[in-house]
Protein backbone atom coordinates (compact mmCIF):
# COMPACT_ATOMS: atom_id res chain seq x y z
CA UNK A 1 0.00 0.00 0.00
CA UNK A 2 1.69 3.16 -1.11
CA UNK A 3 -0.18 5.44 1.32
CA UNK A 4 1.33 3.62 4.28
CA UNK A 5 4.89 4.31 3.09
CA UNK A 6 6.61 7.20 4.80
CA UNK A 7 8.42 9.20 2.14
CA UNK A 8 10.53 12.21 2.94
CA UNK A 9 13.06 14.45 1.22
CA UNK A 10 16.42 13.34 2.56
CA UNK A 11 18.40 16.16 0.94
CA UNK A 12 19.86 18.91 3.06
CA UNK A 13 19.79 21.67 0.43
CA UNK A 14 17.30 23.73 2.37
CA UNK A 15 18.85 23.10 5.76
CA UNK A 16 21.86 24.82 7.24
CA UNK A 17 23.80 21.56 7.30
CA UNK A 18 26.76 21.32 4.93
CA UNK A 19 26.74 18.14 2.87
CA UNK A 20 30.04 16.39 2.32
CA UNK A 21 30.50 13.98 -0.55
CA UNK A 22 31.60 10.43 0.30
CA UNK A 23 35.03 11.27 -1.11
CA UNK A 24 35.48 14.67 0.58
CA UNK A 25 37.70 13.16 3.26
CA UNK A 26 39.70 11.16 0.72
CA UNK A 27 40.41 14.24 -1.39
CA UNK A 28 41.86 15.93 1.68
CA UNK A 29 43.74 12.98 3.03
CA UNK A 30 45.00 11.32 -0.16
CA UNK A 31 45.12 14.41 -2.36
CA UNK A 32 43.69 15.21 -5.77
CA UNK A 33 46.44 15.14 -8.39
CA UNK A 34 45.29 17.49 -11.14
CA UNK A 35 45.05 15.92 -14.61
CA UNK A 36 48.26 16.38 -16.57
CA UNK A 37 50.11 17.54 -13.48
CA UNK A 38 52.45 14.70 -12.68
CA UNK A 39 55.20 14.96 -15.31
CA UNK A 40 53.91 17.70 -17.56
CA UNK A 41 52.45 14.97 -19.75
CA UNK A 42 48.78 14.41 -20.42
CA UNK A 43 46.98 12.08 -18.00
CA UNK A 44 46.01 8.86 -19.75
CA UNK A 45 43.38 8.23 -17.09
CA UNK A 46 41.17 10.74 -15.32
CA UNK A 47 38.75 10.12 -12.47
CA UNK A 48 36.20 12.38 -10.86
CA UNK A 49 33.39 12.04 -8.38
CA UNK A 50 29.86 12.87 -9.34
CA UNK A 51 28.51 13.26 -5.85
CA UNK A 52 25.03 14.13 -4.60
CA UNK A 53 23.16 12.41 -7.40
CA UNK A 54 19.83 10.74 -6.67
CA UNK A 55 20.11 6.93 -6.57
CA UNK A 56 16.83 5.02 -6.41
CA UNK A 57 16.48 1.25 -6.27
CA UNK A 58 13.33 0.04 -8.01
CA UNK A 59 12.10 -3.46 -7.28
CA UNK A 60 9.08 -5.23 -8.68
CA UNK A 61 7.68 -6.53 -11.94
CA UNK A 62 9.31 -5.22 -15.12
CA UNK A 63 6.06 -4.42 -16.90
CA UNK A 64 4.46 -2.27 -14.19
CA UNK A 65 7.72 -0.44 -13.40
CA UNK A 66 8.48 0.13 -17.08
CA UNK A 67 5.08 1.69 -17.67
CA UNK A 68 5.37 3.98 -14.64
CA UNK A 69 8.88 5.08 -15.57
CA UNK A 70 7.95 5.85 -19.17
CA UNK A 71 5.04 7.93 -17.92
CA UNK A 72 6.99 9.81 -15.24
CA UNK A 73 10.50 10.08 -16.67
CA UNK A 74 10.09 9.37 -20.38
CA UNK A 75 12.60 6.49 -20.43
CA UNK A 76 11.86 2.78 -20.22
CA UNK A 77 13.45 0.03 -18.16
CA UNK A 78 16.24 -1.88 -19.88
CA UNK A 79 14.75 -5.33 -20.35
CA UNK A 80 17.96 -7.22 -21.12
CA UNK A 81 20.26 -8.35 -18.32
CA UNK A 82 23.35 -6.20 -17.73
CA UNK A 83 22.10 -3.28 -19.76
CA UNK A 84 21.78 0.43 -19.19
CA UNK A 85 19.43 3.05 -20.63
CA UNK A 86 20.45 6.72 -20.61
CA UNK A 87 18.09 9.59 -21.47
CA UNK A 88 18.70 12.07 -24.31
CA UNK A 89 20.73 14.61 -22.33
CA UNK A 90 22.67 11.95 -20.40
CA UNK A 91 21.50 13.13 -16.98
CA UNK A 92 19.17 10.27 -16.09
CA UNK A 93 19.78 6.54 -16.36
CA UNK A 94 18.26 3.19 -15.47
CA UNK A 95 20.33 0.05 -15.12
CA UNK A 96 19.33 -3.61 -14.88
CA UNK A 97 20.70 -5.08 -11.63
CA UNK A 98 18.71 -8.32 -11.41
CA UNK A 99 15.49 -9.72 -12.90
CA UNK A 100 13.39 -7.65 -10.50
CA UNK A 101 15.73 -4.81 -9.59
CA UNK A 102 16.90 -1.65 -11.33
CA UNK A 103 19.07 1.32 -10.36
CA UNK A 104 17.74 4.72 -11.33
CA UNK A 105 20.15 7.67 -11.19
CA UNK A 106 18.93 11.26 -11.62
CA UNK A 107 20.16 14.76 -10.68
CA UNK A 108 20.01 15.05 -6.90
CA UNK A 109 17.38 17.76 -6.73
CA UNK A 110 14.97 15.63 -8.80
CA UNK A 111 15.07 12.60 -6.52
CA UNK A 112 12.27 13.36 -4.10
CA UNK A 113 9.88 14.68 -6.75
CA UNK A 114 10.53 11.66 -8.95
CA UNK A 115 10.01 9.19 -6.14
CA UNK A 116 6.74 10.90 -5.17
CA UNK A 117 5.45 10.88 -8.75
CA UNK A 118 6.47 7.25 -9.28
CA UNK A 119 4.66 6.21 -6.11
CA UNK A 120 1.56 8.14 -7.14
CA UNK A 121 1.62 6.48 -10.55
CA UNK A 122 2.24 2.99 -9.20
CA UNK A 123 -0.58 3.22 -6.64
CA UNK A 124 -0.97 -0.06 -4.81
CA UNK A 125 1.25 -2.08 -7.16
CA UNK A 126 3.56 -4.60 -5.51
CA UNK A 127 6.82 -2.67 -5.84
CA UNK A 128 9.53 -1.16 -3.66
CA UNK A 129 11.35 2.11 -4.18
CA UNK A 130 14.32 2.82 -1.95
CA UNK A 131 16.37 6.01 -1.95
CA UNK A 132 19.99 4.85 -1.59
CA UNK A 133 21.56 8.18 -2.58
CA UNK A 134 23.37 8.56 0.72
CA UNK A 135 24.75 5.03 0.63
CA UNK A 136 26.79 5.13 -2.54
CA UNK A 137 28.61 7.46 -4.88
CA UNK A 138 29.51 7.57 -8.55
CA UNK A 139 33.08 7.80 -9.81
CA UNK A 140 33.72 8.62 -13.45
CA UNK A 141 36.73 7.20 -15.23
CA UNK A 142 37.90 8.40 -18.63
CA UNK A 143 41.03 8.70 -20.72
CA UNK A 144 42.73 6.44 -23.24
CA UNK A 145 44.05 4.10 -20.53
CA UNK A 146 40.76 3.93 -18.62
CA UNK A 147 40.13 0.31 -19.52
CA UNK A 148 43.70 -0.59 -18.62
CA UNK A 149 43.12 0.75 -15.11
CA UNK A 150 40.00 -1.42 -14.98
CA UNK A 151 41.83 -4.50 -16.27
CA UNK A 152 44.19 -4.24 -13.32
CA UNK A 153 41.30 -4.11 -10.91
CA UNK A 154 38.50 -6.44 -11.99
CA UNK A 155 38.14 -9.98 -13.32
CA UNK A 156 35.31 -8.90 -15.59
CA UNK A 157 36.13 -8.58 -19.28
CA UNK A 158 36.42 -4.82 -19.81
CA UNK A 159 37.77 -4.92 -23.34
CA UNK A 160 35.99 -1.93 -24.94
CA UNK A 161 34.95 -4.16 -27.86
CA UNK A 162 33.09 -6.63 -25.65
CA UNK A 163 32.07 -4.25 -22.87
CA UNK A 164 30.15 -2.05 -25.24
CA UNK A 165 28.36 1.26 -24.61
CA UNK A 166 25.07 0.62 -22.83
CA UNK A 167 26.39 -2.31 -20.79
CA UNK A 168 26.47 -2.31 -16.99
CA UNK A 169 27.33 -5.08 -14.52
CA UNK A 170 27.72 -5.67 -10.82
CA UNK A 171 31.06 -7.36 -10.30
CA UNK A 172 34.16 -7.63 -8.17
CA UNK A 173 36.56 -4.72 -8.20
CA UNK A 174 39.74 -4.85 -6.13
CA UNK A 175 38.08 -7.42 -3.83
CA UNK A 176 35.08 -5.18 -3.20
CA UNK A 177 31.88 -4.99 -5.22
CA UNK A 178 31.16 -2.30 -7.75
CA UNK A 179 28.54 -1.44 -10.32
CA UNK A 180 30.52 -0.87 -13.49
CA UNK A 181 28.90 0.64 -16.56
CA UNK A 182 29.59 2.40 -19.80
CA UNK A 183 27.10 5.20 -20.50
CA UNK A 184 28.98 6.42 -23.59
CA UNK A 185 32.14 5.73 -25.55
CA UNK A 186 34.26 8.29 -23.70
CA UNK A 187 33.79 7.23 -20.08
CA UNK A 188 33.12 4.50 -17.56
CA UNK A 189 31.14 4.86 -14.36
CA UNK A 190 31.83 3.07 -11.09
CA UNK A 191 29.16 3.10 -8.44
CA UNK A 192 30.68 2.21 -5.08
CA UNK A 193 29.39 1.92 -1.56
CA UNK A 194 30.01 4.98 0.54
CA UNK A 195 31.99 3.01 3.11
CA UNK A 196 34.24 1.63 0.35
CA UNK A 197 34.58 4.90 -1.57
CA UNK A 198 37.83 5.92 0.12
CA UNK A 199 39.34 2.48 -0.50
CA UNK A 200 38.33 2.46 -4.17
CA UNK A 201 39.58 6.03 -4.63
CA UNK A 202 43.00 5.18 -3.21
CA UNK A 203 43.08 1.97 -5.23
CA UNK A 204 42.40 3.96 -8.41
CA UNK A 205 45.11 6.52 -7.61
CA UNK A 206 47.55 3.66 -7.09
CA UNK A 207 46.48 1.61 -10.12
CA UNK A 208 46.43 4.71 -12.31
CA UNK A 209 49.81 6.05 -11.26
CA UNK A 210 51.59 4.62 -14.29
CA UNK A 211 49.10 6.41 -16.57
CA UNK A 212 49.61 9.72 -14.76
CA UNK A 213 46.10 9.55 -13.34
CA UNK A 214 44.48 12.87 -12.49
CA UNK A 215 41.38 13.85 -10.57
CA UNK A 216 38.94 16.15 -12.32
CA UNK A 217 37.41 18.72 -10.00
CA UNK A 218 34.72 20.02 -12.34
CA UNK A 219 32.71 16.81 -12.24
CA UNK A 220 31.90 17.44 -8.58
CA UNK A 221 28.43 18.88 -8.39
CA UNK A 222 27.95 20.41 -4.98
CA UNK A 223 24.40 21.06 -3.86
CA UNK A 224 23.55 24.75 -3.89
Amino acid sequence: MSNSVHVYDARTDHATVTAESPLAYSFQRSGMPAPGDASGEESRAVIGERAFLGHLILRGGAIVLDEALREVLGIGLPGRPNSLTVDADGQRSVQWLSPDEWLLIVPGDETFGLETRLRAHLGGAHVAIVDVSAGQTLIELSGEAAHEVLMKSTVYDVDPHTFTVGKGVTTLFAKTSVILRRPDASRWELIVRRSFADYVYRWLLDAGEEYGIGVARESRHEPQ
Partner: protein
Amino acid sequence: MFHIYCPYCEELREEEEFHPKGQAHIARPEEPDTCSDEEWGDYLFFRDNPRGIHHEMWLHAVGCRKFFNITRNTVSYEILETYKMGEQPTITAEHLAREEKNAREEKTNNAQVAEGGQQTVGASDAAVASVKGAQA
Protein backbone atom coordinates in the same frame (compact mmCIF):
# COMPACT_ATOMS: atom_id res chain seq x y z
CA MET B 1 38.97 -20.98 -11.64
CA PHE B 2 35.61 -21.67 -13.19
CA HIS B 3 33.47 -19.65 -15.49
CA ILE B 4 29.91 -20.18 -14.28
CA TYR B 5 26.91 -19.37 -16.42
CA CYS B 6 24.35 -17.37 -14.41
CA PRO B 7 20.89 -18.14 -15.83
CA TYR B 8 19.67 -14.71 -14.71
CA CYS B 9 22.58 -12.57 -15.94
CA GLU B 10 22.67 -14.83 -19.01
CA GLU B 11 26.44 -14.83 -19.24
CA LEU B 12 29.53 -16.61 -17.95
CA ARG B 13 30.97 -15.01 -14.85
CA GLU B 14 34.05 -15.58 -12.76
CA GLU B 15 33.78 -18.14 -9.95
CA GLU B 16 34.76 -15.50 -7.38
CA GLU B 17 31.38 -13.83 -7.84
CA PHE B 18 29.52 -16.93 -6.62
CA HIS B 19 28.90 -18.76 -3.36
CA PRO B 20 27.83 -22.41 -3.08
CA LYS B 21 24.76 -22.83 -0.90
CA GLY B 22 24.36 -26.59 -0.52
CA GLN B 23 22.08 -29.27 -1.89
CA ALA B 24 19.21 -28.19 -4.13
CA HIS B 25 15.62 -29.43 -4.40
CA ILE B 26 15.10 -30.08 -0.70
CA ALA B 27 11.36 -30.06 -0.12
CA ARG B 28 10.09 -28.74 3.19
CA PRO B 29 7.58 -31.14 4.77
CA GLU B 30 4.14 -29.84 3.82
CA GLU B 31 2.76 -30.25 7.35
CA PRO B 32 5.59 -29.53 9.82
CA ASP B 33 3.20 -29.94 12.75
CA THR B 34 2.20 -33.47 11.88
CA CYS B 35 5.32 -34.89 10.23
CA SER B 36 7.52 -37.29 12.18
CA ASP B 37 10.70 -36.21 13.98
CA GLU B 38 12.64 -38.31 11.52
CA GLU B 39 11.14 -36.53 8.51
CA TRP B 40 11.82 -33.15 10.09
CA GLY B 41 15.35 -34.16 11.06
CA ASP B 42 16.06 -35.36 7.52
CA TYR B 43 14.77 -32.07 6.16
CA LEU B 44 16.86 -29.96 8.51
CA PHE B 45 20.11 -31.84 8.87
CA PHE B 46 20.66 -34.69 6.44
CA ARG B 47 22.22 -34.04 3.04
CA ASP B 48 23.34 -36.24 0.17
CA ASN B 49 27.04 -36.57 -0.51
CA PRO B 50 27.09 -38.40 -3.83
CA ARG B 51 30.09 -39.44 -5.87
CA GLY B 52 29.19 -38.10 -9.30
CA ILE B 53 26.16 -36.05 -10.23
CA HIS B 54 24.97 -33.58 -7.62
CA HIS B 55 22.43 -30.76 -7.81
CA GLU B 56 23.37 -27.71 -5.80
CA MET B 57 22.11 -24.23 -5.09
CA TRP B 58 24.53 -21.42 -5.80
CA LEU B 59 24.23 -17.69 -5.22
CA HIS B 60 25.44 -15.05 -7.66
CA ALA B 61 26.59 -13.05 -4.65
CA VAL B 62 28.50 -10.26 -6.38
CA GLY B 63 26.20 -9.90 -9.35
CA CYS B 64 22.45 -10.23 -9.58
CA ARG B 65 22.31 -11.75 -6.05
CA LYS B 66 19.90 -14.48 -7.18
CA PHE B 67 19.96 -18.13 -6.17
CA PHE B 68 20.06 -20.68 -8.99
CA ASN B 69 20.86 -24.39 -9.42
CA ILE B 70 23.94 -26.15 -10.72
CA THR B 71 24.30 -29.79 -11.80
CA ARG B 72 27.86 -30.67 -10.97
CA ASN B 73 30.04 -33.76 -11.12
CA THR B 74 31.66 -34.08 -7.70
CA VAL B 75 34.46 -36.25 -9.11
CA SER B 76 35.57 -34.13 -12.06
CA TYR B 77 34.17 -30.80 -10.75
CA GLU B 78 32.63 -30.37 -14.18
CA ILE B 79 29.56 -28.12 -14.19
CA LEU B 80 27.08 -29.83 -16.49
CA GLU B 81 24.30 -27.26 -16.46
CA THR B 82 22.87 -24.30 -14.55
CA TYR B 83 19.17 -23.55 -14.30
CA LYS B 84 16.84 -21.14 -12.58
CA MET B 85 15.12 -21.67 -9.25
CA GLY B 86 11.87 -23.60 -9.66
CA GLU B 87 13.16 -25.47 -12.72
CA GLN B 88 14.17 -29.13 -12.88
CA PRO B 89 17.56 -30.47 -14.01
CA THR B 90 17.84 -32.02 -17.49
CA ILE B 91 20.94 -33.98 -16.48
CA THR B 92 20.56 -36.43 -13.59
CA ALA B 93 22.43 -39.49 -12.34
CA GLU B 94 19.62 -41.73 -13.70
CA HIS B 95 19.76 -39.98 -17.06
CA LEU B 96 23.53 -40.53 -17.31
CA ALA B 97 23.24 -44.16 -16.21
CA ARG B 98 20.67 -44.72 -18.96
CA GLU B 99 22.94 -43.09 -21.56
CA GLU B 100 25.87 -45.17 -20.42
CA LYS B 101 23.81 -48.34 -20.70
CA ASN B 102 22.69 -47.36 -24.22
CA ALA B 103 26.30 -46.64 -25.20
CA ARG B 104 27.36 -50.04 -23.85
CA GLU B 105 24.65 -51.80 -25.83
CA GLU B 106 25.57 -49.87 -28.96
CA LYS B 107 29.18 -50.84 -28.51
CA THR B 108 28.26 -54.52 -28.21
CA ASN B 109 26.14 -54.28 -31.37
CA ASN B 110 28.86 -52.47 -33.30
CA ALA B 111 31.44 -54.97 -32.20
CA GLN B 112 29.26 -57.78 -33.56
CA VAL B 113 28.97 -55.97 -36.91
CA ALA B 114 32.69 -55.32 -36.96
CA GLU B 115 33.42 -58.97 -36.46
CA GLY B 116 31.49 -59.58 -39.67
CA GLY B 117 34.14 -57.50 -41.46
CA GLN B 118 31.95 -54.41 -41.95
CA GLN B 119 32.26 -51.07 -40.31
CA THR B 120 28.95 -49.32 -39.77
CA VAL B 121 28.45 -45.58 -40.06
CA GLY B 122 28.45 -43.98 -36.63
CA ALA B 123 30.51 -46.70 -35.01
CA SER B 124 31.86 -45.65 -31.65
CA ASP B 125 35.57 -45.06 -31.10
CA ALA B 126 35.77 -48.25 -29.08
CA ALA B 127 34.23 -50.20 -31.93
CA VAL B 128 36.64 -48.64 -34.42
CA ALA B 129 39.53 -49.53 -32.15
CA SER B 130 38.36 -53.12 -31.89
CA VAL B 131 38.21 -53.37 -35.70
CA LYS B 132 41.76 -52.04 -35.96
CA GLY B 133 42.82 -54.48 -33.28
CA ALA B 134 41.35 -57.37 -35.27
CA GLN B 135 43.15 -56.26 -38.44
CA ALA B 136 46.54 -55.92 -36.75
